[in-house]
């Protein structure tokens, strides 16, 4: 290495998540042991005391999520990590974070489900849970990196989004990339863009804790800073007090969704690969996206005009890109380690402009490039 400032390490995916989180300013982590996410807690247990941050192993997943929200209210960047069964338990307080607009990040190293399922094997069965897991209307940001280096950088993005939009953000790993070891470029502190939540600019007497700015996000005061206010999981007005006023309820719930949906252009991260002249588009995310990238190259070698749209942001969904692409290609193939979850979103966004085909695998093995290629070849016969 010639550049002394550049650090390159071989890291496990979960370790890369820890590094990214600490670079982005996470100083509170609460968790509970679970495969395949435990290495994130273990890494935090080592690193956070070095930085004067807090690591806590709580009595359960529900408490971990609660502690993270409590910590965030004091102005500390906070996150937790788990997998399917634990994410189910966290849903109650993920909803609380959404309605109270408390920034936090939840990592889900996905394993096979439902229930205990396949603790040591990968899956992508939680992508709809990430969006709709907690009850009631709310929007959600969910990001899905596809390799270890990307985990570090997307973890930073997830934390920044949570601060920018005052919302819980779900970071979806899967067992493959969580446990795989790869080369990671670790940026310096100076190279990392950090976004912090907005602080109130009005004086304490005129502070309305849930009065949003033009961007639909209210500035957030730290507990103990002198801006005393009430935080409640009940639908509340601009003062933060419970309301039964139909106008206030409607305004609040629409704002909660719109503060994310109206800014989805800034949130959606996607990568296009060989799509310019493609007649077949593979739409993939997470570890499957890297298999699909290889597939597309192999298809091209065989003279099949295939391309890849890799989704890093799963929620909000890439409706516009998919709709546009659907007008260009004959076929969209959606390989996923589930029985067809995001393919429904692709179908919806494609609006019937092209054929949309699902390829699902749920036997605990990752999807390899050759099987996606076989599927492309099989489906090409119908074109």
């Amino acid at each position: 290495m010639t550049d002394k400032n550049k650090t390159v390490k071989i890291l496990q995916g979960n370790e890369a998540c820890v590094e990214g989180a600490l670079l982005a300013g996470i100083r509170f982590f609460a968790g509970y042991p679970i495969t395949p996410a435990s290495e994130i807690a273990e890494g935090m247990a080592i690193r956070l005391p070095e930085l004067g941050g807090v690591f806590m192993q709580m009595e359960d997943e529900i408490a971990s999520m609660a502690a993270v929200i409590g910590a965030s209210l004091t102005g500390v960047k906070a996150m937790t990590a788990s997998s399917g069964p634990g994410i189910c338990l966290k849903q109650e307080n993920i909803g609380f974070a959404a309605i109270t607009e408390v920034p936090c990040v939840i990592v889900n190293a996905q394993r096979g489900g439902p229930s205990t399922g396949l603790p040591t094997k990968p899956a992508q069965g939680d992508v709809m849970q990430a969006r709709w897991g907690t009850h009631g209307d709310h929007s959600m940001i969910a990001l899905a990196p596809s390799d270890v280096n990307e985990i570090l950088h997307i973890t930073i993005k997830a934390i920044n989004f949570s601060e920018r939009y005052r919302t819980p953000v779900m970071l979806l790993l899967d067992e493959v990339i969580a446990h795989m070891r790869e080369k990671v470029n670790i940026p310096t502190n100076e190279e990392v863009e950090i976004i912090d939540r907005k602080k109130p600019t009005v004086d304490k007497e005129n502070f309305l804790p849930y009065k949003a700015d033009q961007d639909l996000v209210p500035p957030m005061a730290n507990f103990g800073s002198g801006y005393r206010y009430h935080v409640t999981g009940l639908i509340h007005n601009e003062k933060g007090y419970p309301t039964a006023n139909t106008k206030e309820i409607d305004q609040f719930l629409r704002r909660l969704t719109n503060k994310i949906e109206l800014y989805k252009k800034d949130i959606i991260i996607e990568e296009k690969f060989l799509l310019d002249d493609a007649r077949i588009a593979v739409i993939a995310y997470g570890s499957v996206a890297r298999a699909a990238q290889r597939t597309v190259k192999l298809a091209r070698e065989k003279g099949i005009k295939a391309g890849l749209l890799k989704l890093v942001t799963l929620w909000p969904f890439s409706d516009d890109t998919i709709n546009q692409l659907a007008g260009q290609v004959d076929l969209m193939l959606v390989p996923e380690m589930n029985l067809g979850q995001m393919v429904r979103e692709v179908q919806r966004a494609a609006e019937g402009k092209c054929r949309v085909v699902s390829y699902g695998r749920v036997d605990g093995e990752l999807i390899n490039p050759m099987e996606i290629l076989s599927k492309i070849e099989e489906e090409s016969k119908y074109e």
Partner: protein
Amino acid sequence: MNNSITQYFREEMFPHIWCPGCGNGIILGAILRAINSIGWEKDEIVMVSGIGCSSRITGYVDFNTMNTTHGRALPFATGIKMSNPNLKVIAVMGDGDCAAIGGNHFIHSARRNIDITAIIINNMIYGMTGGQYSPLTPTGKFGSTAPYGNIDQTFDISALAASAGASYVARGNIFDVNQTTRFIKKALLKKGFSVVEVISDCPISFGRINKLRTPVQMLEWIKSITVPKTTWEKLSEEEKEGKIPTGEFLDINIPEYTDKYQEICIRVQQGRREK
């Protein structure tokens, strides 16, 4: 010094939602008098609640306040205290809130001995949802989900807290409110996990189904079933039946959790893995 507790109210939140004769207001008064006599600033106090009638307390007081999810007041409070140990953190819970859905959090908060004061309003019923029996409904009493009498044994949550690792545990009632206020003040000042259980009433959801229809009847009943600890110890097993001891059960000084965590941080930053 301003001795009026109204200085702590968010007056625009009144009238409150509690029924006439409810003990919640008495306990809120006791908490505020205790805070006032200590002299803490509003800015340094965080009050956290769960769900139920008791949880509405946090809406009425001008501190940093939080009305969280059912049973979860303590883990939220834990996150707050750990990330800013200078804050004075108080969790107010109901009996179902604390002992049923939040039971695990209660045990583990005591086990950590984290410097949080837990105040449990024990009205022996789920009041807000209409009188279902709780883990603290006395055996044999009635609830909307115990129409033929409650067959469950009750928890002794003060004994539970003491055995789980707390530093201070006391039980008062809404009848002897001065004593309850003294207990709360001691709990607030205790460095460590402190618990004050307050035997309270619910004329609407508990009283009506248990032939204690009026607040006065309920208060007299509470007076009749609560016995000072010193008297309790002299009673025979038969005489103890249906009675609840009150008083201070535990008052010890043991290492506190945020202090212990801070020691780890200092040690690690000095490059020492072990003590």
